């Protein structure tokens, strides 16, 4: 076997939009040799039971992610700033969904 055939297919992340008007949500990941194959595989692996009507695939290496080690630096400061949540306003009764 040549080194070429031993190469692993890249990893792709799959996002599905389940209905018109909703946003795409991460559904999982898969391996594929190219973008077309990734889209077909996503269709076959993740949408066989009517899960969606639109698919995005993106090669996992292109996703820039925050590191778990940065969790406290990134997210803890938001915890004690209650004034950032609109909880101190009196909402008129007519506004139902906030």
């Amino acid at each position, binding site marked *: 076997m*040549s080194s*070429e*055939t031993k190469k692993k297919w890249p990893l792709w992340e799959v996002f599905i939009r389940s209905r018109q008007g909703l946003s795409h949500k991460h559904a999982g990941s898969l391996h594929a040799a*190219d973008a077309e*194959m990734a889209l077909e*595989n996503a269709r076959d692996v993740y949408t066989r039971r009517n899960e969606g009507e639109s698919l995005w695939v993106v090669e996992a290496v292109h996703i820039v992610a925050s590191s778990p080690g940065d969790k406290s630096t990134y997210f803890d400061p938001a915890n004690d700033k209650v004034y950032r949540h609109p909880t101190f306003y009196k909402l008129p009764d007519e506004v139902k969904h906030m």
Partner: protein
Amino acid sequence: MSKDQFEYVLRAGDDALILGQQLGLLTGHGPVIEEDIALTNIGLDQIGQARAWLSLAGRLEHAASSELTLRDEDALTFLRDAPEFCNCLLVERPNGDFGDTIARQFLYDNYAVLWLEAMTASSNDEMAGIAAKSVKEARYHLQHSSRWVLRLGDGTTESHSRMQASLGRMWPYVNELFDVDELTTRAASEGWGVDPSKLRSAWDAGVNAVLAEATLSRPDDDFSMRGGRTGSHTEAFGFMLAEMQFLQRAYPDCNW
């Protein structure tokens, strides 16, 4: 007419059924898990189509001669012997290596899309309905198999030569798809069936375009195998049937 329609629809049902069974045999044996799922998914589509065609075939047979007991799709699938099956020989070719599986699928999908598209214009509403539903699936199958032919043909030296060899192994079974006989002639002239020879030029154009892009050469047409439509099957067929029918034969009417 019903008897003609029964035999005609039976061919379509058997094509779908046997290809579905072949692809089902790959469950857990695909080259990678994603392709394993893709192939068995295509197989499942074929079984679904087979079910629709064979169920209709059973009703047509019953309408033609009501003294016969009605055979449903299960009876037609599990309780017929090899000579009673009238699928084309192409679909009963063994799965072989991945190139064989893809070559078989690619050649068949090109035919199936054209045949189903033509059948949507059938004067028989049930046939037209099944064709309209099936052709959407067939178009996806064709996209999937075409892209694999491109990847393998225009891939590495190894994948190219193996794809070319697989194509050569499947090619002798192509001509049979377009054979005209008395049944297809009556079906076409009465407006509920298709003259398969009329599909050939579109098939050639579609297949040639992909083969050219895949840098594969088109094998010669000079040798062909025939007989599936009249129940003369290849050696591998009996073994496949034995596996498919074992449970119903050993435990008649068993259920789960």
